[in-house]
């Protein structure tokens, strides 16, 4: 096969796998930022918290990191719900959520990072999944399981969430709360309760993303920083409240980054990916799958 074609195929496939990781990181934010209008800038820090907890638990038990991340989701859901209660009480209820709420989540991010340094140290932590050193080869295309398995878990979880949002009454209420919270009250639904539930789900997704992240790369307390810009860009590009759009944007981001890195050098990757974001917003300000106001 033509060497350039091999490079292109591998660039696309590895980009899709990378996009799976991005989708895992962005899906939770799509719920909190896209649907609930809560600018949770600490979302990547929660992902790192999940990753480091998974690494510690893996060190203690040897259980697969992705299984551990699934087991952590109830605790993260509770953490997210509690955090939303505080956020609602001190900011949202008073209508101070715009700037002060943003500052609140900045503070949460720093507390998580410093807390992690003080408790687990500043060093990198890792969790070696049993499949992490295996690479499947289909023709000339490599499929490293280190990237493939977390991507599949992430996409499955997102598909499950999407079904939940579409098929269940509570799920529809979550989708509706961002549009008109007062209309929910007419249906005897407490919008605060719904938002608390949904915010818990978004943080539970951070735990899943953490498990995926620690399989892909070693993690330290500040590993979330490189994801902040990306995950917000992906959620905006996808159309804020659209989970499907979020996944497609994440996959597009991964492919753009990796194909650019392969042919034009890795320095151009962020510029091309974020350039495409600007292009999308110029043509479709509501994002790929967002609805025009």
């Amino acid at each position, binding site marked *: 096969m033509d060497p350039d074609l091999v490079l292109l195929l591998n660039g696309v496939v590895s*980009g899709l796998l990378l996009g799976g990781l991005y989708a895992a990181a962005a899906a939770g934010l799509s719920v909190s930022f896209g649907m609930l209008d809560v600018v949770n800038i600490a979302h990547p820090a929660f992902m790192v918290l999940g990753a480091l907890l998974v690494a510690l638990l893996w060190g203690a038990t040897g259980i697969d990191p992705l299984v551990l991340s699934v087991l952590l989701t109830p605790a993260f859901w509770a953490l997210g719900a509690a955090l939303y209660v505080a956020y609602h009480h001190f900011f949202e209820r008073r209508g101070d959520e715009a700037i002060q709420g943003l500052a609140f989540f900045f503070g949460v991010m720093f507390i998580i990072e410093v807390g992690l340094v003080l408790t687990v140290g500043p060093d990198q932590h890792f969790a070696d999944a049993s499949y992490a050193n295996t690479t499947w080869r289909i023709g000339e295309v490599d499929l490293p399981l280190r990237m493939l398995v977390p991507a599949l878990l992430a996409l499955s979880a997102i598909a499950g969430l999407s079904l939940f949002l579409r098929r269940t009454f509570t799920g529809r209420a979550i989708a509706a709360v961002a549009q008109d919270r007062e209309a929910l009250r007419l249906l005897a639904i407490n919008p605060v309760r719904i938002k608390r539930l949904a915010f818990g789900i978004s943080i539970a997704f951070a735990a899943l993303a953490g498990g995926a992240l620690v399989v892909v790369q070693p993690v330290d307390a500040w590993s979330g920083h490189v994801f902040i810009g990306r995950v917000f860009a992906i959620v905006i590009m996808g159309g804020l409240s659209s989970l499907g759009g979020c996944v497609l944007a994440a996959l597009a981001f991964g492919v753009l980054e990796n194909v650019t890195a392969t042919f034009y050098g890795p*320095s151009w990757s962020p510029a091309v990916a974020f350039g495409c974001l600007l292009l999308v917003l110029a043509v479709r300000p509501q994002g790929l799958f967002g609805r025009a106001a």
Partner: protein
Amino acid sequence: MQGISRRGIGRLALAAAAPMTVPATARAQAAPSGPPIRIGYSMSLSGGLAPNGRPALTAHKIWAEDVNGRGGLLGRPVELVNYDDQSTGAQVPGIYTKLIDVDKVDLVVSGYATAIIAPAMPVVMQRNMTFVSLFGTGVNADFKYDRYFSVNCTGSKVKETFAKGFMDIAMAMDPKPRTIALVNLDSDFHQRTAESARFLAKELGLRIVYDRAYPPSTVDFGPIIRSVAAARPDIVFAGSYPPDTAGLLRAASEQRVNFQMMGGPMIGPHATAQKLQLGPILNNLVVWDVYAPEPTLQFPGTKELIERYQPIAARENTDALGYYVPPMAYAQMQVLEQAVKRVGRIDQAALAADMHANQFDTVIGPLRFDALGEWTEERNLYTQYQGVQGNGIDQFKRTGTQVVLYPPRYKSGDLRKPYTAGA
């Protein structure tokens, strides 16, 4: 008033005679007294540089304990005054201004690495303080401050010497390599090191088939390694920081690359956590380093320092083995200590003159400084991981696991090639 008995008079007489009868060495180790000599600096205890900042502080504390145990410096206790710079250069000028103007420290040293040292320079220069830095690369090339002294093995001619060891090892292979790939993180340190490799490759007639930098935000290193492999280089000179090093080596392993030689300033396996994580993937990797636990690199005090550091590191959750930063950080303070002892007072000009004029015997070996404050003789070590099996920590304490290939005077093993996954 109580009368003095004959026995009491006898005790007093003994006490009065004591200073004349105890040996001189014991007198020198008497408890230090007087106002402390305060040594101020910023240190990265949080943020991205903390994995190296915290071991450095641990080594400094061990040094202070040692000095105070020996009777202090000029008979006075030493006291370390440090603030967390959060790995942010912007914090550093304020910290040094406070240290010098408010805390009135007697001496200043630097925190860890170039990004923290450079922002301190204007403040330190304005106050004419003598400044001993840690892991700075080419910081004084532009400042040309005559009271700057660098505890880093790169020397002042980074372009001509940094990659020399790597190239010497490569050119000694049979057959000689003809092509080279350069890949590095887009950071100040790695740009300088890549420039050295580029310069020497041209000198040696090596054809550069790949030469690209990657941004710090890179997550997937698969495409980079694939592009490098597609260029079919004989050898690969790579410069990276810990998360990237893991990503590059994982990708190299997954793609089953086969290069005659691969390595360079790939910072990462220097930290114990990454040694354990990568395990056999490290085999045959040629890594720039500053120290390895090999018999050729044992200097007075090195082994004792490591033995004292490791239990503290276990308690403080910091780098478990401590081969990378702690010896250099301890040596940084030894330079200061020896200069103060020779000068006999805290005099910034005299201290700088002494540091320029004399040799320092440290736990990382003897050092001398040139006019720019860099080592007169660079000591870039190129080491190779060999025979790593599994992910156990004890193998990394044994000699022969990380052999020294360069410079020849510290050589402890021979090159194994090629670099290929899990060699």
